């Protein structure tokens, strides 16, 4: 290898890595709002119980209202693609809404999967009125975590 070859190879490689780093910085900026949005959406509804489920295992759940109705936050479930946490709204003993406080978002693929799986899981859970629903194929990890968190929230609501 000549000196010219070595120097040009080093420069080219450095340039490519720098370009990758720059592109990565932009991705991080795009991704951040995605995560922030799911958290933000719950911020209003969760009525202040922001500390619930910060543990990494399903140590339990917390109620933010009385047993008759209100919102219940499930445990935050850790997966290799990020954490998953859902919150349910209960009115007169029935689940009227499921919100994802946080979904797997470790990388673009997880965001993709979460965005696809969450609406499906939500509608199935509302229809079944339980966490006893099919996992979404291709999103097994997200589904399992979602349903675990959902079960914890349902348990907390004593439904």
């Amino acid at each position: 290898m000549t000196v010219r070859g070595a120097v040009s190879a080093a420069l080219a490689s450095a340039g490519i890595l720098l370009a990758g780093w720059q592109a990565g910085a932009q991705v991080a900026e795009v991704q951040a709002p995605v995560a922030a949005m799911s958290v933000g959406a719950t911020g209003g509804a969760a009525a202040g119980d922001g500390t619930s489920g910060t543990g990494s295992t399903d140590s339990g759940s917390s109620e933010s209202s009385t047993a008759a109705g209100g919102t219940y936050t499930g445990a935050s479930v850790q997966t290799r693609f990020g954490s998953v946490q859902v919150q349910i709204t209960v009115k007169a003993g029935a689940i009227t809404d499921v919100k994802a406080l946080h979904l797997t978002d470790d990388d673009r693929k997880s965001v993709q999967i979460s965005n696809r799986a969450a609406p499906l899981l939500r509608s199935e859970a509302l229809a079944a009125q339980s966490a006893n629903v099919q996992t979404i194929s291709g999103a097994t990890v997200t589904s399992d975590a979602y349903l675990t968190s959902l079960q914890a929230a349902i348990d907390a609501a004593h439904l």
Partner: protein
Amino acid sequence: MNSQLMPAPPAHSRSGGPEVRTYPAIPAGPHNFASQHRRRRLRSDALTVTAWSSVAASLALWLADGGARGIDSAASAFTAMGIVAGLAGMDLVLLMLLLAARIPLIDRTIGHDRALEFHGKLGKPSLYLLLAHGLLIAVGYGMAEGLDPVSESVALWVQVPDMWLAFISMALFLAVVITSLVAVRRRFPYEFWYGVHLLTYAAVATSIPHQFSVGAVFAEGTWQRWYWMAICVATGTALLFFRVLQPVLATYRHRLTVSRIQTVAPGVVNIEMSGRQLDRLTGTGGRFFVWRFLAPGLWWHPHPFSLSAEPLAHGLQGEGGLRITVRNLGRGSAQLARLRPGTKVAVEGPYGLFGTAARTRDKVVMIGAGIGITPLRALLESTPFSPGNATVLLRGHSEQELYLSVEILEICRNRGARLFHLTGPRVDGDPHTWLPEEAVRRGHTLAAYAPDISESDVYVCGPAGWARNVVADARTAGVRAEQIHHERFDW
């Protein structure tokens, strides 16, 4: 010792001996070997840049995906390192495949043997990277889920689609690299080693599904996915094209058949072949082809042999003949001496840089020993030089071992090259000489035979240890690495 100095007669004197062929007209006029060499060095640098850039690009894919920003815990750090190791490892594997794909651009730039040398050098690094990839991912994922790496691996194997293939791929890579290590390679026959090496293709193939289905960097809809697919497909296509399609086409195009077997010396035969469109092969004298003689028990055994004469095309469609000279070294080459005329021949090539394409200077020195003399015979016939600008040194135990020396003498006379026969025993107990004992005693050195060697291209072909000593002497005499062209028969 018998060393003779040929005077330099005019280039085109006819001598008309019985074995003498008509030599192709070598284009007169100045050959710009310096600029040929500059271009080759430019290509070589471009290849270096491409190779390094591809490794950098594999990391940039991950960086561009926001990879580095996602590290916020020990678990994600392990996972990140695992991903990076996997990307770089796979990129090296693709580079290895390309180096072994016999791509003409690579062959004409660094030569087949150097390409394989780099290929071999990448073996261990890529294996280590792939092993690290598996381990780090198991640790990183495991930490995120509160599992030990073994349970995590089992979970990955059982639950995640395509991961079982990835585990098999890892086992295959291990098998390939371990059997390629020289120490182990010695204990098995070449064919066994070759067969295991073919497993590389299975190892690569089984590793690909999980890269696209589990690898988050290559999620659907990302440009990274397209880039990775493109380089995988390009590598596969290059392999298929240059290692399968091209040889089939060349075999069909040239329709080579054995025309004559002629004994040159005990255990050494000329194999002459006739074929078509041989005009497309002129200028390949000294380069080598991989031959398969399509006879029972022989066809599956490929052998590299150099041309020992420049291809001769006399017919309108390029009909003509070419020739190799083979020494009986092992099972396969012993059978070759008994080939029947009319046997069809499959051919791959030409390969290697032992030809005019490697020239960097106007003067040339050729040094050969034993069977290594034969490609020099072809090169001497075809490579351009003015009378007086070429020196040929032939080394053998006895005159009889200076294969093709009659023909070489004839060409030297015709073209005005100086020829020395260096025969006799070597110096006892001195592993550093390549000259016969008598020459050493008289104080002859390489520079004494070829005074202008430092401004010549030096072509060396012969047994490995001997060639090493020649090259070392040439370097001492002021020859730069770029001027030395060394063909090895024993890779």
